[in-house]
């Protein structure tokens, strides 16, 4: 009972912390992007016939004619009600733009993070349990090598090999995009189509990403391997596999789980590269486009989303942690 109350209080504390972080991000994102040199109005109209009246009108529409503090208070007031403003270049509410793109990113990187976390956890646990062995060395060797590979490069190679086709290898997978576009059908056919498009990007992300989980899992399990409680478990007559599964892994899971959550937090932002290489219609590319104008509402909104995802996942990690580790429970 008191434990439950303690957990509630702990949760409230963490929620408060997250709220503060979010506020800080809210404020800083406004100013961070104001230091980008360049006038969005000029940038947007540069190269097209424009009259001075048009420029002034745009400036008015974007609210850029107001003093900075007015812009700031307006931005804050709106952001707090969930209104992120209207994109300069797409003329659509930033929230809508992001909502339109976010599912694609979430799908791609979410699947990738889940896959590589699972692969990493599994291989990491195996590796640590038989550390020093041939399997462990091959395992970590391959993981480290893949980790060192730039993801965009791997993606390009995969495209050359499996999309364009090299020599006898036929181009099995699409080169980019999320769906064929000509198959508008919904349901299973569409799902298979999207899955087909996802194979290479997910493969890229998994190959480059699983090493981290593997290494963290391996080292935290190694830390636990000397634990006296494992000797106790063995002394009880438990099978080796049971000792690992029931005693060692739950203890070693803690740091790894935190990391997985942080990776999930990166989901939004972390896909910029792979989205670029695989023409994935996600938020990563949007950010890049927004930045070059700078399309302030969109940049700020995306930034908030990126940081918000991190904050949210950190928060979730904080909240899950006590469930995994009773020592943190208060």
């Amino acid at each position, binding site marked *: 009972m008191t434990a439950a109350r303690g957990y509630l209080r702990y949760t409230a504390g963490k929620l408060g912390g997250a709220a*503060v*972080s979010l506020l*800080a*991000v809210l404020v*800083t994102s406004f100013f*961070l*992007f104001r*230091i*980008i*040199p360049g006038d969005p109005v000029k940038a947007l109209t540069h190269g097209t016939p424009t009259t001075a009246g048009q420029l002034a009108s745009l400036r008015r529409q974007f609210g850029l004619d107001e003093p900075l503090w007015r812009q700031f208070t307006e931005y804050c007031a709106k952001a707090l009600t969930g209104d992120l403003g209207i994109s300069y270049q797409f003329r659509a509410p930033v929230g809508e733009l992001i909502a339109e793109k976010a599912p694609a990113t979430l799908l791609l990187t979410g699947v990738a993070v889940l896959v590589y976390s699972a692969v990493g956890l599994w291989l990491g646990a195996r590796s640590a349990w038989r550390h020093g062995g041939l399997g462990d060395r091959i395992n970590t*060797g391959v993981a*480290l*090598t893949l*980790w*060192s*590979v*730039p993801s*965009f*490069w*791997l993606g*390009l*190679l995969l*495209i*050359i090999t499996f999309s*364009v086709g*090299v020599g006898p290898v036929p181009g099995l997978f699409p080169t980019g995009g999320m769906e064929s576009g000509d198959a508008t059908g919904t349901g299973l056919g569409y799902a298979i189509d999207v899955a087909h498009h996802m194979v290479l990007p997910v493969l890229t992300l998994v190959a480059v990403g699983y090493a981290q989980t593997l290494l963290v899992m391996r080292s935290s399990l190694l830390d636990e391997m000397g634990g006296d409680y494992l000797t106790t478990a063995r002394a009880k007559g438990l099978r080796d596999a049971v000792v690992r599964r029931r005693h060692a892994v739950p203890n070693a899971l803690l740091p790894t789980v935190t990391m997985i959550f942080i990776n999930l*937090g*990166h989901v*939004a*932002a*972390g896909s*910029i*590269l792979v989205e*670029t290489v695989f023409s994935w219609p996600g938020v990563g590319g949007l*950010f*890049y486009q927004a*930045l*070059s104008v700078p399309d302030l509402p969109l940049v700020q909104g995306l*930034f908030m989303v*990126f*940081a918000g995802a*991190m*904050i949210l996942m*950190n928060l979730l990690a904080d909240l899950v942690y006590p469930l995994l580790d009773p020592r943190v429970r208060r």
Partner: protein
Amino acid sequence: MSGSPARARRLEAAARLWRAYRAHRAGLFGLGVLVLIAAAALAAPLLVEGDVRKVTGTPGGPLEPPSARFPLGTDQFGRPLLGLLLWGARISLTVGLLAAALSVAIGAAVGIVAGHYGGWFATLLMRITDWFLVMPTLVLAIVLATVMSRDVWTVIVAIGVTSWPTTARLVRAQTIAVESRPYIERAKALGGGHRHIMGRHVLPNVLPLVLAQTTLGISAAILTEATLAFLGLGDPMVISWGGMLQEAREAGAVSSGHWWYLAPPGLAIALVALAFTLCGRAIEKVLDPRLGVGR
């Protein structure tokens, strides 16, 4: 023991470290690769005839496949890719080293100070750290690289300024761990002040961590540099591996099947990153403060 016992012991400790390091085969491999690449990078002006940076009057035709004359083929201007790769090593290594050093320096300073002093000051510092931590590094680096002018220093600063928080957190945790050791209490009881505690006790104890972080950070920095260059945020006038990849892609190497344009820079990045990672991990193990080795 006479003379300067401390110095003699230091040397001996270094020798012991080296012996311990030698036991890590992967670390040795990494070190070997690094030495080779660093030597090649330093010798690039001697190894490569002419000015590879020139885009006209180049020795080869555009996009020649590997041949005896051009072992790695040529790029879109007809420049030998091997020469470019050697020149690129200089930038990639420089950026990696400096950016990692910058990042770790910031991180270590913030971590030690926050860990040592505690109180509202530390809370503030850690809040700032958290802020940077929740900022996606790449996004922030892209913003910085967009804001500042396009040159190598920009990239170094962008990487350094965005990647320090992890180090800061690690160093802070380590500092707090060290500060809870009885010998800190003893040093305080001996009359040691903040400077003494931080300089004589905390710093030497976090240095191994910092060293390992730097080494690991270099590989991360090299990858980030390549990424930024690939995204077109590097200095286009400078030859770097990431820039080569970007040029290759811009030149349509992917779809026109010019794999030799694309493969070497990527492999080189991966190799150097791997080498630094292996070294870093070996150093980490040799100096692991938890094991109390490397005394």
